[in-house]
C-alpha cells in the first residue's frame, strides 16, 4: 500500500525482498546502499543477530527522483529467511506494493526455494494478497557458483507465471539494479492502473 502525499508531493512505496535463509536478500540491499548517491538514500537499518543473520528486517529508504513533479521514494525491506522466523516475516509483508523473490541457485537449496515461495504465497494470502497478481519479480542469485541449477529448470519451478526474472551475483552487483528497476516499474504501473480505475 503506497502513500501518496499531495501536500508534500511525494509517493512512497514498499518493496519486500523475500526468499530462503542465506539466499542474499540482505546482500542485495547492501549493494544498493553501497552504490547509491548519499543524497538519495537513508541509513541501512539491519535488525540482525550477532552472527549477522536477519532477525526482524533490513530497511533501506531510497529517494529515486521525481516523476511528474512527485518525489518518488521506495522503502526496501528484507524478511528473515530462516524458517522459524515466520511470525516476523508475515508482519513485514503488511502493506507491501511489490515483492522480489531472491532464489538461491545452488542445487542443494532448490527445496528451500520452493518451500520459501510457497510460504510467501500463504503469508501474502493472510494479508489479503494473491501471489498471482501482486507486483512480483524473481531473482536467481549466486549464478557464479559451480553447482547451480540450470536456468530453465529454476524458471519452471519458481516462475511459472513468467514475471520479469533476472540472474544475479549480488555481492558484485550483477542483476541487482535490474531486479530493483523491474519491480519499481511494476509497482508504479500498478499504482497508475489503480488510480485510473479509481
Amino acid at each position, binding site marked *: 500500500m503506497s502513500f501518496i502525499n*499531495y501536500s*508534500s508531493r511525494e509517493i512512497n512505496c*514498499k518493496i519486500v525482498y523475500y526468499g530462503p535463509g542465506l539466499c542474499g536478500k540482505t546482500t542485495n540491499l547492501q549493494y544498493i546502499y553501497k552504490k547509491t548517491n548519499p543524497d538519495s538514500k537513508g541509513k541501512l537499518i539491519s535488525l540482525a543477530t550477532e552472527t549477522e543473520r536477519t532477525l526482524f528486517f533490513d530497511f533501506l529508504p531510497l529517494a529515486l527522483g521525481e516523476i511528474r513533479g512527485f518525489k518518488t521514494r521506495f522503502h526496501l525491506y528484507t524478511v528473515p529467511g530462516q524458517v522459524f522466523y515466520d511470525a516476523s516475516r508475515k508482519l513485514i509483508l503488511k502493506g507491501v506494493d511489490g515483492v522480489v523473490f531472491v532464489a538461491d541457485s545452488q542445487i542443494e537449496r532448490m527445496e528451500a526455494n520452493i518451500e520459501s515461495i510457497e510460504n510467501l504465497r500463504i503469508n501474502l494470502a493472510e494479508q489479503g494478497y494473491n501471489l498471482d497478481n501482486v507486483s512480483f519479480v524473481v531473482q536467481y542469485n549466486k549464478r557464479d557458483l559451480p553447482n547451480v541449477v540450470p536456468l530453465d529448470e529454476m524458471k519452471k519451478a519458481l516462475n511459472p507465471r513468467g514475471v520479469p526474472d533476472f540472474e544475479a551475483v549480488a555481492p558484485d552487483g550483477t542483476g541487482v539494479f535490474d531486479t530493483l528497476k523491474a519491480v519499481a516499474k511494476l509497482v508504479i504501473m500498478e499504482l497508475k492502473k489503480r488510480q485510473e480505475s479509481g
Partner: protein
Amino acid sequence: MLGSDLVMYEEEFKLIDAELNRLLAQANGKVVFLVDKNGQLIAATGETENLDTTSLASLTAGNIAATGGMAKLLGEKEFSILFHEGQRDNIHISIISQRIILVVIFDQRSSLGLVRLRVKKSAEVLGAIFGQLLQKVESGKGAGKSGDSPFAEITDEDIDKLFG
C-alpha cells in the same frame, strides 16, 4: 482507507500538522510524529533536525507490528499504547483509528501522565481528520482524480529516468 493506498491532501495535512504542533506544546514534548502502520512517515514536528525520522518511522511500525503479533497470540485485538523509558528520552506510542501510529518523544521536562492525557485528546481530533480524509478518498473528491494526478501520463521513460 483500510486496505487501500494512503492518500494525503493539502487541507488535511495542514489540520494534522496544526494538531501535532498543539500536542507538542501541550505535552511539553521534544518530537511528535505520525506514522502509517506500514511504516510511512506522515508528518513530524519538534526537534527533528538531527533525527532520522524515516528510520524511526519504519522501526516504530515494526515495533507496533511485533506487539500486534504478540497481542494476537494472547487473544487481544491490539496493544494500543507502548511506552519505552530511557535514561534521557522516553517514547510514547499509541494507535489511532487502528491504522495510524502517534509517537511522542519527551524528556524530563514532561511526564508520562501529562503525555498520556494530551495524547488521548489529540487522538480524538486526529481520528476525526483521518475519518474525513478517508471519506474524501472514497468519494473520489481528492486531487487524485483530476489532472493533478502524477500518474495520469506516466510512461516507461519516466520510470527509466529515475534510475539515471
